[in-house]
């Protein structure tokens, strides 16, 4: 299975089979082929990579149940002032407003529940589609 990134002057597109083993390579492919200039190398190599790995991991685990016949779509809008990454699965979605705070003393020692919290802290803006099976991460220039 070779991942193929489809690039135009203002977009990148990648379909990822629902397999957690693909997350690292998918993140690498997107991160290393972003045009230079908009995001600093440091934000690409840390913030973008981490946030995209989170979003992909969720879409694969919860959205598509790690079924490699199913696909998670990654769509990237390349602006001169921003990079916007959409991660869309074909699952049932979820309600992102009802998540416990992972930093609450009761939760700090839990193994799970930090993904969206981490995403929100690493990118400039997070939006969900109505169904909750599509997340959109915006990183502004800098």
């Amino acid at each position, binding site marked *: 299975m070779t991942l193929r990134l489809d690039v135009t002057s203002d977009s990148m597109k990648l379909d990822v089979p629902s397999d957690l083993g693909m997350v690292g390579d998918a993140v690498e492919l997107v991160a290393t082929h972003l045009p230079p200039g908009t995001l600093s190398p440091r934000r690409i190599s840390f913030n973008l990579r981490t946030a995209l790995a989170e979003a992909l*991991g969720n879409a694969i685990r919860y959205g598509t149940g790690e079924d490699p016949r199913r696909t998670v779509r990654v769509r990237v809008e390349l602006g001169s002032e921003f990079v916007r990454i959409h991660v869309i699965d074909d699952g049932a979605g979820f309600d992102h407003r009802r998540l416990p705070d992972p930093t609450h003393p009761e939760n700090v020692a839990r193994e799970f529940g930090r993904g969206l919290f981490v995403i929100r802290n690493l990118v400039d803006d997070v939006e969900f589609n109505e169904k909750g099976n599509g997340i959109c991460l915006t990183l502004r220039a800098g």
Partner: protein
Amino acid sequence: MRFTLKKDKSGVVVVGVEGQLIVGNRQELKQKVLDALEEGSRKFIIDFSKTGYIDSSGLGVLVSLSKKIREQGGELRLAGLNADLQTLFELTKLDTLFAITRTAEEALAAF
């Protein structure tokens, strides 16, 4: 991405994480550390000086390993976090859960 385990002469296991610790490879790290725990090791250092990024699944596996090691009377220390990774531990408040040192050498000396 690669995990290296080295046992120091004083019996401390130093685990190197090259590349990333994420949802796609955390099970491998977990298994390697649990195997060493099974075989009797009790003192562990995970060295992130060659780590690019860690996602929340990676953080979760550290929480879980730390718990399992403590249950066996052992201890897990973290070392080598760069500024971005240090911030990640701080904002998730995981810096309050782990003993974190600047370098693996410092962690070794402190055991």
